[in-house]
């Protein structure tokens, strides 16, 4: 291993990896920075200050939504300040979202009601300082999806806002977004979004008991995402996240992936490419039985490559061998064991392991396997420093 001579900006370096060209050195970044982590360990530092502090290759996340007044759309007047990873919701007179905080719960508990001319849907979201989750699912009866199909609005991308962000961010790194999720709580992939609207076990059972209904639901969610993707033309994003939780091999099978995930997300990826956009396909959990199925959908990158030590199954070297010449791999680093409660030498060794197993010929961005809540800043420093020493030229 030699000391890398930096000849590329962070943006150039990560784009080289995404596009299959050789970067000057191993790009090193992280997934979402959780507000809990930044508050607890970094004195409330901003995302961008974090990247600067550790001299890492940066992302800026932005998903500005736009409404279309010609279709009777307007910004949701009930939505308060835009929170972490949230976007502006789009309302019409036929799709109004109301919310109320429910008292008497241990966690912050909010009931959302989606009011349409033919009925009201509702779901309950709870949250704590770490995360948010669904406490009551939206789909309570199968035909609830008719209201989604008929009235749910589809956000469009505010291209000008994205381009202003891209202009300001310049060469510091990548402008990253995600494909729109269901209003108030969702995931970018079609199946993954569906798994936020009903319990994933019930969704799995439905694939056996009533597959046509599952396809109907997925088509409704896909249609909305497609409208968003078609509005991305001209937006200077560098990468969008598709996928999400609940489609890993620790939750579903390759058969379900083939029948209920791939057909829908593959079309979204093709549409994104037509709109001049790149896609990274995010998978939390097991990936090894799905590697080729994911790569066959045609994403530009895949993440998170979570290792067995974190409850998943990824053998980084084998993954590189099987799909490394087709997509850029992002992730693979075990943040549970090497960003906290270990010696800096162990962190550095884990970086080297990742580079040796996945770094050959580029097409690899080192990153923790998804976000983290607890991490020792000194170990993050070792993580970034060791990565900067992993040279290609």
């Amino acid at each position, binding site marked *: 291993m030699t000391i890398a001579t930096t000849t590329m900006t962070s943006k150039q370096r990560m784009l080289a990896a995404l596009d299959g060209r050789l970067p000057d050195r191993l790009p090193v970044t992280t997934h979402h920075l959780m507000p809990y982590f930044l508050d607890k360990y970094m004195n409330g530092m901003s995302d961008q200050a974090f990247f600067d502090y550790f001299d890492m290759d940066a992302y800026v996340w932005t998903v500005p939504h736009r409404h279309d007044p010609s279709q009777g759309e307007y910004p949701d007047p009930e939505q308060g300040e835009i929170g972490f990873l949230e976007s502006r919701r789009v309302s019409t007179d036929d799709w109004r979202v109301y919310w109320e905080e429910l008292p008497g719960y241990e966690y912050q508990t909010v009931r959302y009601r989606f009011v349409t001319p033919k009925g009201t849907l509702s779901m309950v979201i709870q949250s704590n300082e770490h995360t948010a989750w669904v406490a009551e699912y939206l789909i309570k009866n199968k035909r609830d999806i008719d209201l989604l199909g008929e009235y749910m609005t589809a956000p469009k991308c505010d291209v000008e806002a994205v381009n202003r962000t891209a202009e300001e961010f310049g060469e510091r790194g990548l402008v990253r977004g995600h494909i729109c999720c269901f209003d108030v709580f969702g995931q970018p992939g079609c199946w993954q979004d569906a798994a936020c609207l009903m319990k994933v*076990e019930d969704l*799995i*059972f439905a694939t056996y008991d009533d597959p046509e209904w599952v396809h109907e639901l997925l088509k409704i969610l896909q249609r909305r995402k497609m409208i968003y993707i078609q509005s991305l033309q001209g937006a200077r994003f560098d990468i969008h996240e598709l996928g999400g939780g609940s489609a890993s091999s620790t939750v579903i099978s390759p058969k379900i992936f083939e029948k209920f995930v791939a057909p829908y997300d593959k079309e979204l990826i093709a549409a994104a490419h037509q709109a001049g956009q790149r896609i990274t396909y995010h998978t939390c959990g097991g990936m090894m039985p799905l590697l080729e199925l994911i790569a066959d959908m045609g994403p530009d990158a895949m993440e998170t490559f979570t290792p067995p030590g974190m*409850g998943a199954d990824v053998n980084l070297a084998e993954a590189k061998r099987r799909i490394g010449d087709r997509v850029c791999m992002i992730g693979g680093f075990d943040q549970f064991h090497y960003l906290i409660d270990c010696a800096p030498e162990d962190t550095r060794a884990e970086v080297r392991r990742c580079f040796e197993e996945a770094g050959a010929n580029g097409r690899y961005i080192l990153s923790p396997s998804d976000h983290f*809540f607890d991490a020792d800043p000194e170990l993050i420093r070792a993580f970034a420093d060791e990565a900067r020493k992993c040279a290609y030229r």
Partner: protein
Amino acid sequence: MTDLEDLRQSIIEGDMKSTTSLVESALADGLEPGTILNDGMIAAMTEVGRRFEEGEYFVPEMLIAARAMQAGLKILKPKLVDSGTKPLGTVAIGTVKGDLHDIGKSLVAMMLEGAGFEIMDLGVDVPPEKFVEAIRGGAQVIAMSALLTTTMPNMKATVEAVKQAGLRDQSVIVIGGAPVTQAYANEIGADAYAPDASAAVRVTRSLIS
């Protein structure tokens, strides 16, 4: 005469309707409820576990097999009680305090039930005192799940609560979940770590026997 091989196959394939009708006909044919359970249903779930461990089955196949098993058990249970057939033991299972993930916990519960254990499903976000109460209520096994590093410490808190209640020697503690490891089980003084639902059945069975 009902062929138990047909029953095993219907569970392995997750065919709920066929499972219930085969259990009904086996009972009508006069087969002992314990025989139907052990040679038909538990044998089927053992095969399902084997296929999972060998990568032939994934969580969905286990879920539908467990659902078929449960449908059969619903018919069989009153007969098992009448015939004096005892469960292998009682397992109190839950996702620890602060953690709302339940698919893994539910799958383990179904697989344990399919292996012949009585299940006390405590749900998600379970505080240590509820596990302690479950032991007082007759559970011999505590099975805890956590999917977040931030909630794992509540496994340790539960082990401590069981110790403080003076019930540690009356219970076996098994833990699992994505961030959990054997080393963590050793560190907090749990009896076993199970990396997946099939292993949870295997280790629980070995600890109880």
